C-alpha cells in the first residue's frame, strides 16, 4: 500500500477531505437531483467503495431511485459494483473534480462492474457535473 501511495500521485489538487464525508455529500447531491432519478429507475445495485491506500471500505445501496447513506464495510448483496482507488482519487471522483472514465482509462480507478453498470455510474456523474 505504501508503494502505491509513492507512485500514484494525486491527479488534480490534493483533497484534504476523507472518504466518508465525500460519499455522504455525493449521496445527498444525487438524492436531491431530480434528473438523476431517471437513470436510477429500476437499477438496484450495492456499490462498494474501497480506498486502496487507507484500507477503508464503505458501501451504499441504490433502491427506488434513491441512494442509502454510506455505511462502513463491504456490501455482500447479489448485484455488486466495486470501485477501488486511492482515497484522494475516490474523493475527487465523488465530488466531481475528476472524470471517472478518464481515471479508469488512466488506471487510477478500478471499476468492477458490467459494461452497463459502468456507463450508468458515469451517467450519474455526467448529469451531476456535466463533465
Amino acid at each position: 500500500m505504501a508503494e502505491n501511495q509513492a507512485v500514484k500521485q494525486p491527479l488534480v489538487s490534493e483533497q484534504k477531505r476523507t472518504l466518508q464525508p465525500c460519499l455522504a455529500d455525493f449521496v445527498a447531491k444525487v438524492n436531491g437531483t431530480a434528473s438523476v432519478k431517471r437513470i436510477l429507475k429500476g437499477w438496484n445495485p450495492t456499490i462498494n467503495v474501497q480506498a486502496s491506500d487507507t484500507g477503508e471500505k464503505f458501501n451504499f445501496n441504490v433502491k427506488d431511485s434513491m441512494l442509502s447513506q454510506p455505511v462502513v464495510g463491504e456490501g455482500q448483496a447479489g448485484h455488486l459494483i466495486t470501485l477501488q482507488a486511492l482515497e484522494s482519487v475516490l474523493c475527487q471522483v465523488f465530488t466531481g473534480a475528476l472524470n471517472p472514465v478518464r481515471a479508469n482509462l488512466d488506471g487510477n480507478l478500478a471499476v468492477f462492474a458490467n459494461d452497463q453498470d459502468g456507463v450508468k455510474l458515469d451517467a450519474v456523474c455526467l448529469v451531476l457535473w456535466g463533465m
Partner: protein
Amino acid sequence: MRAVYELAVYVAISAGMALTTNCFSMIASLFGVVSYAALSLAIVLAGVFCILVSTSIAELASLFPSAPGLRTYLKAAFGDYVSLALVSLYLMMAAMIGAVQAYILSLVLSDMGFTVLPLIVGVVTLTAVVVLNLVGMQMPRAVQLIMTGLLVAGILVVAAFALSGPAPSPVPVPTVPAVGASDLQAFLTGISLAIFLFIGFEWVTPTGTGPHAYRWMIPLSMPIAIGLLVILYLAFSAAISASLDTAGVVNNLIPQMALGRATLGAVGYYLMAFLTLLAALASFNAGIMAASRMVYALSRERVLPAWCAWISMRSGAPLGAILLVGAILLTATVATIHTGKYMLVTVIAVAIECLVYGALIFATLRLRVLRSAEPRPFKSPLPPLAQGLIGLMLPALGLGALMSYTESPFSAWNGFFALVAGSLVAAMLMRVHHNRHKPATIAD
C-alpha cells in the same frame, strides 16, 4: 465452488471471444498451406505463443485491473499517440473479423437452402444485434458460459464421431508434401495463420468482478482457454482429415457443415449449422459490446466527438458508441461480402493482431521500468529476454502472414499499410479533437 464457477466464466469469455465461425474456415485453409501433421504442430505452436503472450497481458491486467485493456496499457507504456494509433488499428481489425463472420453466416444460410442474398443476411443479422444492444439487452455471464460450452461440446462430439466412426470415408490426401527443410517458410506461415484461431482471448481482462480476480483467476483463465481451443482445433482438423477430402476442403469456408453431414448425416449438418449460428451471434454481441465500451470511453476522454458518449438514461446502453461501431461493422461487412476477399481480410487481421501482441509484450517490459514500484498481483514468469524475443517474433510472423497471401501479395501489403496509415491519421485527428475540447476543470 464459487471460485471454480468464476474461473469457468472467465475461461468461457476468453474462449468464446476467440472461437468464431472464421476459425473453422481458417483450419480448412491451412490444409492448403501445410500437411495435416504440420498443421497440427502449427496449431500447437501458435497456442503456445499465445499462452506466452497471455502471461504479459495478465501482468498488465493485474497492474491496471478493470481498465479497458489496450488503451490503458499502451498509453501508460508508450504515450497517448501510439496508444490511440494501435487502438484504432485494433478496432479496424475487430470490424474486419466481424465482417468475415457475417459473410460466413450468410454462406451457412445459403448452404441450408435459404435463397437470400448474402449481403441481406449480413446486413439483417448485424442490424438485429445492433438493435438488441441499443435497447440494452445484455447477455448474462451464465448464458455466455452455456453457449461456449455447447459450442465446444458440439464440435468435440462431431469430431469424436468422425474419428471413431466405423467407415471413415475418403482417405486424407495431403495437398502439399510433409514439411521438410525447404518447407520451413510454409510451416512458419502456418503458425502465423494459426494465431488467428486465438485472436480475442485477451478480451477477458476488463471483465474481472473484483480485485481478487486479477491475482490468479484471469491470468489462469487465458492459458486454460487457449489450451481448450488447441484441443478443440486439433480434434476438428483430425476429424476433417479423417472424414473429408482435404484437397477439396481448402476453399470451403464452412467446412464444419460438410463435416457434420459426413459424420452424423442431417442431424450433424443441422447441429453444426445451429452451433455456427450460436457462435456468430455470441461473438457479434460480445464484440459490439466490447468495442462500443471502448468508443464510449474514448469519447468521454474527449478524443472522439461527444455524440459517441450519448447514452440511454433508462438502460445505460452507450447508444452513440453502438451506432458508430455498428456503422463501421456494417461498412466492413458490405465491403467483404461484395468483394468476397475473405482470405485477404483474414491475413491482414492476423498481421495487425501480431503487431498488437508484440506491442503489449514490450509494454509489459517498459512498465516494469516506468512503474516498477507499483504492485502487480501477477507477474509473467518469463524472463525479460524471452519476452523480448517473442515480442520481436510476433510482428515477423504477422508479416509472414501477409506474404502468404498468394492471390495478390501486393493487395495484402497495401491493405495492411493502408490501415496502419489510416490508424496513424485517426490517432492524429483524435489528438487534435482532444486538444480543442479540453475537459472542463471543476474548481475545488
